[in-house]
C-alpha cells in the first residue's frame, strides 16, 4: 500500500528537520510558557542587606532610653528559646496551668508555607517568607537577612542542661526535630510520637527546675525568659507545609522566673492569648532590648511583652501604678516599632522593582503620619512631663497604642497580600503560550496523521473517532481531577483507576477484534499488580499510625506475620528480572539485530545479572555471602552504571558508523529495544526492587503497539489515536496545574474576602506548588528526551529509501515511550521519596539539632 506521492511529498520537506522541527518548537514553547508562568507563580521578595544598629534609634521620634540599653528597656537579660519542630497546640497546657501568672501559653499562628526553614526564617527576621524559600529547606543556608540570632553551630541534646549553669551566653536556642519526624513517619497519634513528647516533657521539666532554682536575686537566671515554641503545626497524619488550621497553629509557652506582674491593663491581657509568629522576632527583640530586625513587619505582642514587665520597677519613684508604667513603656516600644517598620517599607519600595504600589504606600504613609502626629504633639509631651497622673495619661496612651496598632496591621496586611499574591498577567501569558503549543501539537499530529493516514484504508476513520474520543474523555477526567486537592492526594489511585479503565477498554476492543487478547489481559493484570505494590508501599510506611491503620491492606497484615511474604517480596523481583533476561536473550537470538544493537543488549543482560547479584548480597536473607560485602555494595552499581554509559556510547557510535541495511521496520524495532534496554538497567537499579515489575509492565504495554506495528496494518490507526492521547496526556497533567491557581486567584479575588483568598492561596502552595514544580520538570525533560530521540531516530532516514509512512509514526511512537517514562518516573519519584523518609528520619532521630 505504499504510495509514491507521499514519498516525494515527504522528501520535499527536507530531511530530518522536516520531522523534528515541530518537536523542537514545542520544547521552545513549553520553556517559554513555563518561564513566564513561573515568574508569576513563584513569588519572590527582595531581601535587603541592611541591618539595624543601636544608634539608629536616635533618628526616630521616640523616647530613647539612656541607661545603657539599646532600643528599648530590656525586660530580660537572657533568653532560652526551645523550638520544637512541628509542635501541635495541645502539648504544653499542663505546664502552664501550674504557674498561672509567670507563664502563659500562646496560640501562635504561622504564615504558610509551613516548612521549617521558612518558619525559622520568619521567626528570626520577622518577615514573610515566600514559596521559593522552600527549596532552601533542603540545603539550609544560613539566613542572610538581619536577625536576632547569630546562627552558630549544631550541638546535641546533652548540651542543653549543662549550658544552663554556664554564664557565657545571652540567648540559648535549642531546636528539637524529633516531633516533626515522628509525626511525618508515624502520624500524630502514634506511639513513637507520644514517646517523643514525653521525652521532651522530661527535658522541659528539667530545664524549668534548674531555672527556678537559680532564679533568685543575684543568681544567673534572675532575668531569664524561657520560651518553648513550635515553628509550625502538623496535620493529623503528620504532614505540614500547607495552610490548614492544624498546620499553621502551634503553641508558644513563655515563662519568666520573677515575681509575676499582676497588673497589666486588661485590654492588653486577654486570657486567650494569640500570637502571630510574625510578631515574635520584634517582641523578643524588644524584651531583650536589642535593635529590632531590619526587615521585620510585625508588632510587639502585648501579652508576651507583659511577661517582662516586672523589671522596670527600679524607677518607681513616680506616682504611677505598675500598669501605667508598663503602658508607657509599651507605647514607646510601639513607637520605635512603627518607626522601624516604616523605615523598612520605605527602603524596600525604594530598592525593589516589585515594591508596593503608590496607592498602598500612601495609605501606609497616612496611617503612620496620623500615629506619628499624635505621638509628637501629644503623647510625647505627656510622657516627658512627669507631673501627669494616670487619669490624663492613660487615655492618651491608649489612643496612641491604637493608632500604632492600626498602622502596623495595615502594613502587615499589605505585605501579606503583596508577597502572597500571584502575578496574574505573567501567569495568563504563560498559560496562553501553553495553550498555543497545545494547539500547535495537535495540528502537527493531525498533519502527520494525514500524511500517512492516506495510505490506509478509510474504514479506520470511525475507529480513530471512537477511540480518540474515548481517550480524550479519559484525559478530560484526569485533567479535571487535578482541580481538586483530594484528587491530587490520591493521585496514585486515580492514575491506576484510569489505567485499569484503559486496560479494560483495550481488553474489550481486543475481544472485538479477537487479537492481542493475552497482551491486554497481561496489561490489566500488571496494572493491578502495580496498584497493590503502591498500596503496600504506602501502608508499610504508616502501619503504626492509627490514622492509616484502616487502610492497611491484608497483604501487609500477612506480611508482618509470615516470613514467607518477605521472602516473596525479595524473590519475585528477581524472578521477573530473570524472565526479562530470558526474553531479551530470545529476542537477540531472533537474528534481526545488527552488530551494535546485539552487543548493547548483551550488555544489558550482563548488567541485569549483576543487579540480581547486588540484590542477593544486599538482602541478608540468603545467608551465604557470595562475595565480600563491600564489593557487592559499592562496585556492582558502579559497574552497572559504567555498562549503561558504555551502551549509550556504543549506540551513539553505532549511529555514526551505521550501515545502510536491513528493513526499516526491523531496524526500528532493534533500535528501540536496544535503547530501552540500555537505559533499563540503570533505571532498575535506581528504582529498587519494584523496578522490574514496572519495567515488565511497560514492556508489555510497549509490546502492544509494537507487535501491532509489525503484524497488523489495521491496528495502526487505533494506535495513532492512543498516541495522540498519550501525547496530550503529558499535557493534560500540566495544564490544569497551571490553570488552577489562576482560576482560584481570579475567582476569589473578585468575590470573597482577603482571608479566604489567603487560605486558598496557601492551599495552592501546600499542595499544588510542589506538584507544579515536579510536573514542569517532567514536561521539559520529556520534551527534551523526545527531541533527542527524534534526532537519533531520524538520522537514519536521510539516506533511507524505505517506507515513508513509517517515519511520522516513528516520531510519534517515541512519545508514548517517553511520556510513559515520565509517568513512571513520577511514580518512581514518589515511591523513592517514601522510601527515603525512614532513612532520613532515623538519622534525624539520632541527632537533635542544637544551636548555641
Amino acid at each position, binding site marked *: 500500500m505504499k504510495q509514491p506521492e507521499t514519498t516525494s511529498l515527504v522528501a520535499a520537506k527536507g530531511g530530518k528537520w522536516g520531522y523534528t522541527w515541530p518537536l523542537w518548537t514545542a520544547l521552545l514553547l513549553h520553556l517559554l510558557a513555563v518561564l513566564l508562568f513561573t515568574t508569576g507563580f513563584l513569588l519572590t521578595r527582595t531581601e535587603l542587606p541592611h541591618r539595624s544598629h543601636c544608634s539608629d534609634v536616635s533618628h526616630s521620634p521616640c523616647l530613647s532610653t539612656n541607661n545603657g540599653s539599646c532600643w528599648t528597656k530590656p525586660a530580660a537579660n537572657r533568653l532560652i528559646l526551645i523550638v520544637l519542630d512541628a509542635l501541635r497546640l495541645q502539648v504544653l497546657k499542663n505546664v502552664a496551668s501550674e504557674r498561672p501568672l509567670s507563664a502563659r501559653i500562646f496560640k501562635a499562628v504561622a504564615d504558610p508555607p509551613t516548612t521549617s526553614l521558612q518558619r525559622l526564617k520568619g521567626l528570626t527576621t520577622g518577615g514573610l517568607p515566600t514559596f521559593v524559600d522552600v527549596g532552601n529547606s533542603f540545603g539550609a543556608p544560613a539566613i542572610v537577612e538581619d536577625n536576632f540570632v547569630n546562627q552558630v553551630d549544631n550541638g546535641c541534646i546533652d548540651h542543653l542542661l549543662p549550658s544552663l549553669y554556664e554564664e557565657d551566653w545571652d540567648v540559648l536556642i535549642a531546636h528539637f526535630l524529633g516531633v516533626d519526624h515522628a509525626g511525618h513517619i508515624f502520624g500524630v497519634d502514634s506511639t513513637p510520637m507520644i514517646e517523643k513528647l514525653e521525652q521532651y516533657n522530661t527535658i522541659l521539666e528539667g530545664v524549668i527546675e534548674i531555672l527556678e532554682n537559680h532564679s533568685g536575686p543575684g543568681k544567673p537566671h534572675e532575668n531569664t525568659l524561657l520560651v518553648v515554641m513550635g515553628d509550625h503545626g502538623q496535620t493529623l497524619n503528620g504532614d505540614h507545609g500547607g495552610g490548614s488550621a492544624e498546620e499553621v497553629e502551634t503553641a508558644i509557652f513563655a515563662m519568666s522566673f520573677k515575681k509575676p506582674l499582676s497588673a497589666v491593663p486588661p485590654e492588653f491581657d486577654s486570657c486567650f492569648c494569640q500570637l502571630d509568629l510574625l510578631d515574635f522576632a520584634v517582641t523578643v527583640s524588644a524584651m531583650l532590648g536589642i535593635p529590632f530586625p531590619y526587615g521585620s513587619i510585625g508588632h510587639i505582642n502585648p501579652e508576651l511583652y507583659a511577661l517582662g514587665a516586672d523589671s522596670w520597677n527600679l524607677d518607681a519613684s513616680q506616682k504611677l501604678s505598675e500598669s501605667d508604667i508598663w503602658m508607657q513603656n509599651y507605647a514607646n516600644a510601639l513607637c520605635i516599632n512603627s518607626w522601624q517598620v516604616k523605615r523598612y517599607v520605605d527602603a524596600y519600595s525604594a530598592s525593589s522593582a516589585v515594591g508596593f504600589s503608590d496607592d498602598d504606600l500612601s495609605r501606609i504613609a497616612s496611617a503612620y503620619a496620623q500615629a506619628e502626629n499624635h505621638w509628637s504633639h501629644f503623647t510625647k509631651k505627656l510622657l516627658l512631663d512627669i507631673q501627669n497622673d494616670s487619669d490624663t495619661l492613660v487615655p492618651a496612651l491608649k489612643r496612641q497604642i491604637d493608632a500604632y496598632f492600626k498602622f502596623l496591621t495595615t502594613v502587615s496586611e499589605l505585605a501579606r497580600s503583596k508577597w502572597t499574591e500571584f502575578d496574574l498577567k505573567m501567569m495568563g501569558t504563560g498559560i496562553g503560550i501553553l495553550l498555543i503549543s497545545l494547539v500547535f501539537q495537535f495540528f502537527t499530529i493531525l498533519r502527520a496523521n494525514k500524511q500517512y493516514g492516506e495510505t490506509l484504508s478509510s474504514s479506520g476513520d470511525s475507529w480513530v473517532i471512537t477511540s480518540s474520543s474515548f481517550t480524550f474523555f479519559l484525559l478530560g477526567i484526569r485533567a479535571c481531577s487535578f482541580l481538586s486537592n*483530594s484528587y491530587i492526594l490520591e493521585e496514585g489511585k486515580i492514575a491506576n*483507576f484510569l489505567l485499569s479503565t484503559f*486496560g479494560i477498554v483495550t481488553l474489550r476492543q481486543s475481544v*472485538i477484534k479477537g487479537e492481542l487478547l493475552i497482551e491486554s489481559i497481561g496489561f490489566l493484570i500488571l496494572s493491578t499488580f502495580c*496498584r497493590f505494590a503502591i498500596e503496600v508501599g504506602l501502608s508499610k510506611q504508616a502501619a503504626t499510625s492509627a490514622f492509616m491503620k484502616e487502610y492497611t*491492606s491484608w497483604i501487609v497484615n500477612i506480611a508482618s506475620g509470615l516470613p514467607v511474604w518477605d521472602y516473596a517480596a525479595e524473590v519475585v523481583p528477581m524472578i521477573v528480572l530473570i524472565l526479562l533476561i530470558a526474553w531479551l536473550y530470545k529476542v537477540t537470538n531472533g537474528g534481526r539485530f545488527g552488530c551494535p544493537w546485539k552487543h548493547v543488549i548483551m550488555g544489558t543482560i550482563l548488567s541485569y545479572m549483576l543487579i540480581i547479584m547486588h540484590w542477593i548480597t544486599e538482602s541478608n536473607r540468603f545467608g551465604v555471602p557470595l562475595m565480600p560485602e563491600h564489593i557487592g555494595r559499592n562496585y556492582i552499581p558502579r559497574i552497572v552504571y559504567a555498562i549503561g554509559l558504555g551502551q549509550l556510547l556504543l549506540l551513539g557510535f553505532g549511529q555514526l558508523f551505521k550501515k545502510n541495511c536491513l528493513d526499516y521496520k526491523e531496524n526500528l524495532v532493534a533500535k528501540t529495544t536496544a535503547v530501552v534496554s540500555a537505559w533499563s538497567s540503570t533505571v532498575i537499579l535506581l528504582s529498587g526492587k519494584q523496578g522490574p515489575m514496572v519495567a515488565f509492565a511497560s514492556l508489555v504495554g510497549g509490546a502492544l503497539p509494537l507487535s501491532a506495528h509489525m503484524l497488523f496494518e489495521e491496528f495502526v490507526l487505533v494506535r495513532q489515536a492512543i498516541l495522540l492521547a498519550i501525547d496530550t496526556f503529558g499535557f493534560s497533567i500540566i495544564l490544569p496545574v497551571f490553570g488552577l491557581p489562576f482560576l482560584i486567584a481570579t475567582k476569589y479575588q473578585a468575590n470573597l474576602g482577603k482571608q479566604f483568598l489567603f487560605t486558598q492561596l496557601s492551599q495552592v502552595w501546600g499542595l499544588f506548588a510542589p506538584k507544579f514544580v515536579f510536573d514542569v520538570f517532567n514536561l521539559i525533560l520529556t520534551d527534551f528526551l523526545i527531541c533527542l530521540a527524534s534526532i537519533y531516530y531520524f538520522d537514519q532516514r536521510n539516506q533511507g529509501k524505505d517506507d515513508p509512512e513509517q517515519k511520522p509514526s516513528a516520531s510519534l511512537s517515541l512519545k508514548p515511550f517517553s511520556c510513559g517514562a515520565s509517568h513512571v518516573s513520577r511514580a518512581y519519584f514518589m515511591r523513592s521519596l517514601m522510601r527515603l523518609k525512614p532513612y532520613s528520619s532515623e538519622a534525624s532521630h539520632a541527632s537533635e539539632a542544637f544551636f548555641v
Partner: protein
Amino acid sequence: MDRRKSSKETTSSKALTMVPSPPISASEAFIVNTLCALVLFFAFWIANTLYSIDLVTDPSLTLFFIWITELPTVTLLFSRYRQNRQRCTYLRAVGRGVLGVPVGALLNLLGAIALGAPVTSQYLPKTVNWALMMSLFTTVPASCVLGSSWTDWRRIFAQTKPNGSIEYLLCLPAHGAVIGAWFGAWPMPLDWERPWQEWPISVSYGAIAGYLVALIASLGFVLACGRPQHIKRE
C-alpha cells in the same frame, strides 16, 4: 477494511442461522423492566422498614437483599425469552442463569479490584455482595437468554450491537450499571468525609442509578425498533 466488513458479514450470517430469541413486545418489555425496578425498590423497602438499615449504614446486608430479591425475578423473567427454545427448556435457562451469578460476580470482582477496590478482610463481604448485585445487573439476564454462545456475548457486550428488542434489554442495563458504577467511584477520593464515600456505597448508588436509567432507555429502544417486530409476531 475488507477484513472488517467480512467479519461483520460472517457474524450476521451466523446470527441468521441460529434460532433467534423470540422478540419481545413493548408491553412485555415494559413489564419486565418495571418488575426489575420494582423488586429493586422492594429490596430497599425491606432493608429500610424491616431491618431499618440502608446502603450507608449496612451496605453488605442491603446489597445482599438487593441481589437475593433480584435473583429469582431476573432469572424467572428472562428465561422466558431464551434462545433456541427447541433445545433449551425453561428450567435449563433458569439453571444457567443461576450459574451465571458466580461467574459474573467473579468478573465484576476482578474488574473492581483491578480498578482499585479494597481487598481488606473488613471489606470482603461488602465487595462480594456488591459483585453479586452487579452480576445480576449485567451477566445473569444475558446468561439466561444467550446461554454460553460466545459470539452473541461478544456481539452484545464487546461490540455493542444488540440485534432485536430482547437484546436491548440485555445490553443497555448491563452497560448502564457498569458505567454508572464507574462514575459512582468518582466521589470516593474527595475529602468531604461523608459516610457514603466509602467503598462500595457510592459505587452501588451509581450502578443502581445507571441501571435504572438504562432500563428506561432500553424501553425506548424497544419501542423504537419493536414496532415492526411486534407486527411480525402477530
